[in-house]
């Protein structure tokens, strides 16, 4: 497998605080990597390092086998990037902006660009300053997809888009993937991540805390158990691996990691009237990951 992005102990410090702490990450060709984490986790910091806009305090990042900061201009011939907040010149029109960005990049697929303009239902005949945030986001997305670059980097790209446009974005990412392009997608939208990403990296407070396919992450994580009793629910707090206990009247909900044996015994002894065990929803999964103190699992 060809490695597209590789970071080794990639670190960025602001003052004494590490915004990104010793990141080791590999992204392979043709893969869509979901990059998740709460606000301030260091997602944007990582992307700016990959783009060579900032310099690592320690460690290194290579893209296409070249150093991300030293050979930035070369690497960028094969990259397209869309930030969460687009920074486009207010006095240019949409059409002028697309033309300018295409010229800066060198070559684009013009037929595909036309198709994208239609798909995103974008009117290029206005000044950028008069576009809504969503429309400005569309310009950046159209320009990025139209390059058909080998690597697409997105930093929370759909934050200003309505659900219909967000769907079109997802379709285009899947098309890019089919096309053999690699995608690095920082996102907050779980639906998006679930539909698109082959692997997911979760960042918290600058540290990589999880990395794997969605199923792998689910496997490592807790199972949710819910049970209703005729009387008071039994006490489960002493059982190994149990967390997040909730009790309302006759109802008990808790999470369990590891062996479920002991918990089952306690519950069945207390004569449950209903019992349910399920995999956590994606949301619960991420809330759980985000909440665990860093360094622990």
């Amino acid at each position, binding site marked *: 497998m060809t490695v597209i992005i590789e970071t080794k102990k990639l670190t960025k410090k602001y003052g004494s605080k590490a915004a990104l702490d010793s990141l080791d990450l590999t992204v392979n060709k043709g893969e869509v990597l979901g990059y998740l984490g709460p606000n301030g986790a260091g997602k944007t910091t990582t992307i700016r390092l990959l783009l060579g*806009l*900032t*310099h690592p305090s320690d460690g290194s990042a290579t893209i296409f086998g070249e150093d991300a900061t030293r050979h930035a201009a070369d690497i*960028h*011939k094969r*990259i397209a990037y869309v930030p969460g907040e687009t*920074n486009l010149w207010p006095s240019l*029109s949409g*059409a002028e902006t697309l033309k300018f960005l295409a010229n800066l990049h060198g070559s684009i697929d013009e037929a595909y660009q036309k198709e994208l303009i239609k798909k995103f239902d974008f009117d290029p*005949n206005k000044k950028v300053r008069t576009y809504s945030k969503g429309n400005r986001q569309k310009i950046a997305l159209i320009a990025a997809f139209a390059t058909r670059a080998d690597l697409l980097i997105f930093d929370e790209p759909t934050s200003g888009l309505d659900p219909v446009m967000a769907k079109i974005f997802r379709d285009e990412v899947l098309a890019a993937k089919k096309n053999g392009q690699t995608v690095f997608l920082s996102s907050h939208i779980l639906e998006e991540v679930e539909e698109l990403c082959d692997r997911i990296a979760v960042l918290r407070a600058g540290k990589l805390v999880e990395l794997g396919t969605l199923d792998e992450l689910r496997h490592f994580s807790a199972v949710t158990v819910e049970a209703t009793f005729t009387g008071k629910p039994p006490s489960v707090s002493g059982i190994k691996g149990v967390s997040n206990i909730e009790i309302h009247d006759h109802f008990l909900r808790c999470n369990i990691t590891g062996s479920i044996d002991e918990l089952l015994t306690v519950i069945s002894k207390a004569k449950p009237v209903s019992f349910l065990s399920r995999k956590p929803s994606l949301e619960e999964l991420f809330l759980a990951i985000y909440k665990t103190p860093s360094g622990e699992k």
Partner: protein
Amino acid sequence: MAKRTFSPSRAMRRFGFRQTIRGALIIGVLSGLMMGAQGAAYAAAYPNQKDRDAFVTSLSSVPALGFMAGEAKNALLPASYSIYKSIALTTLLAAIWGLMTTTRLLRGQEEDGRLEPILAGRTTKMAASLHILIGYGYSFVIAIVISWAAIAALGLDPQVDLSIGHAGLLSLGVFLPGLFFASLGVLTSQLALTRGRALAYGLGVLLFLFTLRGAANSITDWNGWKHFSPFGWTDLLNPVLDPQLIWILPTLAFTIIVIPLALFFAKQRDLGESVLPESQFARSHFYLLGSDFGYSIRQNIWPFIWWTLGAIAYAGLLSSIAKVGADALSSSPAFVKIVSTLGGNHDDIVISFLGLGGMFTALILLVMSAVSIGSIRRQEAKGYLDTILVQPIHRSAWLTKRLIILAVMVLAISLIASYTIWQIAENTGVSLDLWIILQNGTTLVGSVLLLIGAGALLYGVLPRLAAIVMYVAIVWGFVVDVLKSFLTLDDSIDKTSLLHYATFTPTKTPDWETFTWLLGIGIFLAALGVWRFAKRDIVNE
């Protein structure tokens, strides 16, 4: 109730204050020095009443001088001399400052989308604007007080003998046009969709009213027109010789009418819109969009035109005065003294005035360089540079090209201004060697290129401070120039002033050696800056 600890109006006032206080300190000190430091120099140059009378008589005989100066009668006393010498320039500076500040605070912030998150809270657009303006009001008062303090302190000199009260009126007189144009900027910020346009509307009015007052001063029959210009109202206020406090009222009345009107407009319109309608649709023009270099040129076309017009106007104005002045006054020894206190060379009256035109060109170019480096930094702060640098473009190449565009603009404007000076001299019957003038126009930009190099280095190392340090360097040049007029300054101090190198003598053989040094150091500093820039992080705001 616990939520009361955060007050949006207080936050807005603090924002308005913080955004403006730096400019207020600079303009306060500068105007205080320019208005305060002239008296002692004058008293030394014209110790007795007979000299002073002769001086005023000769000034009055050349009304054209009044265009860039105050009324001649002010040259009668050391206490009021600064009004003659500097009032036009200081009121102009204060007016431009007021206009630039309010358009930036209101329309500029809105254009950048910075008002959106604020207005999502409990504040209305009208209230937010009002409190931002109140914050600016604090800075404005501080500027007046600083300038007052400086004028009063320098006026304590028994030779000058300016009372503290008169000093206060003088400072007020300087800042009233500032208030007028700050208010106008509040209005144009509502009328226009962009900060650039809000500023352009205001500058149009400003240039017209400044010219009106200048014409009223220089052409006796038109004297009455100054009643219609805020710059004229400061003349009419006559702060030192015979104060007419009534002339404070027109500016106050204007402010009291215009600001509520503008705030009313702010309430009526939607965020991101303007009172004057503007079509959303735009015809696209694809010229100069082929590369980042092309687009940098495209972005600089209008600024280049504006700066060129400004430089031509200034250089032309001084040069056209030259002949008239020379004809009327070549016999007056007092006149030679004014010219020399104005900062030119006193070899010959005409040449002095032409040289003054050259010096002003250099001054304009110095300011333009600081503005340009500031705008390079703004491109970075607002994230436009990200958009460029994530493309296959080398950082060092990007900055180098921007600097080259700036240097070429500087040189072109200087040559155009030199040619203007030559043409005007020619028209008024003073024949000069065009080749020599153009060479001098080239060597004139040495100090500007040095400043650009220093600015590029600062930009590479401390991007946030680059422009402000450049402004400070320019102001320092001014301060040294002013101090020089009443202190005997050590030569080495004089050499720290950029203006020291910005001399222009249309007839002298150009000083290529100094130019080469300045250019060489400038290029060296710029190269260092480009190198550092490529190594540092891109920092957004």
